[in-house]
């Protein structure tokens, strides 16, 4: 049995090929506007870092610039003493990776099925996906809480934290739109070669789906990493709490006693923000592929 016919090397041109290079004066204007905007955007971030390193909270204009004699790392040390940072970061990691695994695994299956296959109940599920985006989590929260902690007994477990976020519907959306975009000929060729649906998906569709998977991962990562309310409800034991919750606890209860409470809060903020920002910066070049764009067609 022969392998499926050759897959086109790259389904779409990379973004770099599509970028236009504009003549110099326009480019400079563009850079200027972007710079102004970027400064305005990143300024709170910068201020957060500066504030976290201040010995005494300095709210004056000169406080915007770092002063060597007002700089210290005690804010970070205080957080480290108050929160079990390694443990809560571990919890955050387990929580996030759990969600990512479920989303990628089941999301691809669902996205593929919704895009490529015809089966009974398909449109119902499609409508459900859209409905899901409209419902605020707070509406579901308490019955969900009763269900997961009381009925299933999953309080204070990683599973209990993961389950409500297990499959990110936006990711399903992304996968579906991506698979919709793949040329039909691919699947027809595979069918002609006698491959079953499962094999088609595994051998043909998924290897191509790497950009979509990357997008889905980056988008889905943010949710559980920053999620505060649900893990807060579900975990009573402090050693199960993810970093976002530990940080919020600290800000609400202990920070008032620190030498520089604002600084301590901001140090916590910086710590929480570092992993997503770093991840984003590393992958952002590949992030803007057309996978999400195809979603806007339908």
């Amino acid at each position, binding site marked *: 049995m022969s392998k499926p016919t050759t897959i086109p090397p790259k389904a779409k041109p990379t973004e770099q090929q599509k970028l236009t290079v504009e003549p110099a004066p326009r480019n400079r204007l563009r850079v200027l506007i972007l710079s102004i905007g970027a400064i305005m955007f990143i300024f709170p971030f910068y201020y957060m870092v500066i504030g976290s390193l201040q010995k005494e909270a300095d709210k004056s204009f000169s406080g915007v610039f770092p002063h060597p004699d007002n700089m210290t790392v005690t804010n970070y040390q205080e957080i480290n003493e108050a929160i079990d940072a390694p443990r809560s970061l571990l919890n955050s990691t387990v929580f996030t990776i759990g969600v990512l695994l479920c989303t990628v695994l089941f999301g691809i299956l669902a996205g593929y099925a919704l895009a490529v296959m015809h089966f009974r109940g398909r449109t119902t599920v499609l409508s459900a996906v859209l409905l899901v985006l409209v419902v605020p989590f707070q509406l579901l929260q308490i019955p969900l809480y009763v269900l997961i902690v009381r009925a299933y007994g999953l309080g204070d477990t990683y599973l209990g934290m993961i389950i409500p976020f297990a499959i990110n519907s936006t990711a399903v959306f992304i996968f579906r739109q991506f698979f919709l975009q793949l040329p*039909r000929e691919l699947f027809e060729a595979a069918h002609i070669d006698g491959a079953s649906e499962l094999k088609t998906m595994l051998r043909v569709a998924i290897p191509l789906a790497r950009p979509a998977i990357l997008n889905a991962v980056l988008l889905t990562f943010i949710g559980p990493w920053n999620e505060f309310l649900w893990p807060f409800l579900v975990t009573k034991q402090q050693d199960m709490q993810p970093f976002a919750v530990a*940080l919020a606890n600290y800000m609400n209860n202990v920070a008032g006693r620190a030498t520089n409470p604002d600084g301590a809060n901001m140090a916590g903020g910086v710590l929480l923000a570092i992993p997503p920002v770093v991840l984003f910066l590393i992958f952002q070049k590949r992030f803007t592929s057309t996978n999400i764009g195809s979603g*806007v067609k339908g």
Partner: protein
Amino acid sequence: MATVRSAETERTTERDRESAVQPVEKERWLGAQPIGLLFITPYVLFLAAIFVYPLIVQFFISFKDYFFAAPGATVDRPWVGFQNYVDVIQDPTFQRSLFNVFEFMIINVPATVFLSLVLAYALNSKMRGLSFFRGAYYAPYVTASVAIVTVWLFMFGETGLVNTVLGSLAPDPSWLINRYWAMPMIAVFVTWKQLGFFILLYLAALQNVPKERYEAADVDGASTVQKFWSVTVPGVRPATTLVIILATITGMNLFTEPYLLTNGGGPNGASVTPVFYMYQKGVEQGQAGYAAAIGMILLVITLGIALVQRRVLERD
């Protein structure tokens, strides 16, 4: 090939597209590819447990004078029919909360659409430091509100940086405790924070605007601004629809930011949002039935708006 879309195919619905290219298959009861049911099962189970079940529970609760209680405790939960709904609609705090989110959306949605498109357009070109610029605009989106709110309070507090710079021009009472400025401030904050996500949507959509159209416009001697309005804006219309709908949904469901920035209700309820009020009633005051009614009404309103938007915006 399949990646370059012309103006015509943009408009076809996905159903047409699929039926146009899908070969006719046997009409079986479970559909052409029943194995799809197997693929979709984990997701459906997930939806059923996490969304459908709680939603149905809330639906039934909203018709009762409900109160969550310990397992094994006997609590009286009388059926009250539509009384909760009537009370909610007449509740001045709820009405204020709807007004607040509409005020929010009036600022947030147009600003989001305009800024994210303009910025995506600007970020869509080769230039030095592109990574830095992209990082700058994405960074707020990626960080938790909990973390970044402290900075904003630091900046916009009564003795904060902004007021120090503004001196006597600073509003009194200060921004976040001012009943006229509180909600607009929250709108600015959320717009700033979410912009990265929408820039991304537009960036991707911009890739699918065919270069030929820009070239044609160049041939006609259009300026940058003219090209923007006549080629770019129509070209990303489906993205605009999505951006508007998503921003609206976010606005209607606003909770975290008012909670964090204004300690809940703000001065005189100036920044109460429906979801926050639902939380206050349901969790803090233990009135689950009333809170469920708030949730149901909100859901209906949001769905209604989203559907209307979709219909209006997708019309040709």
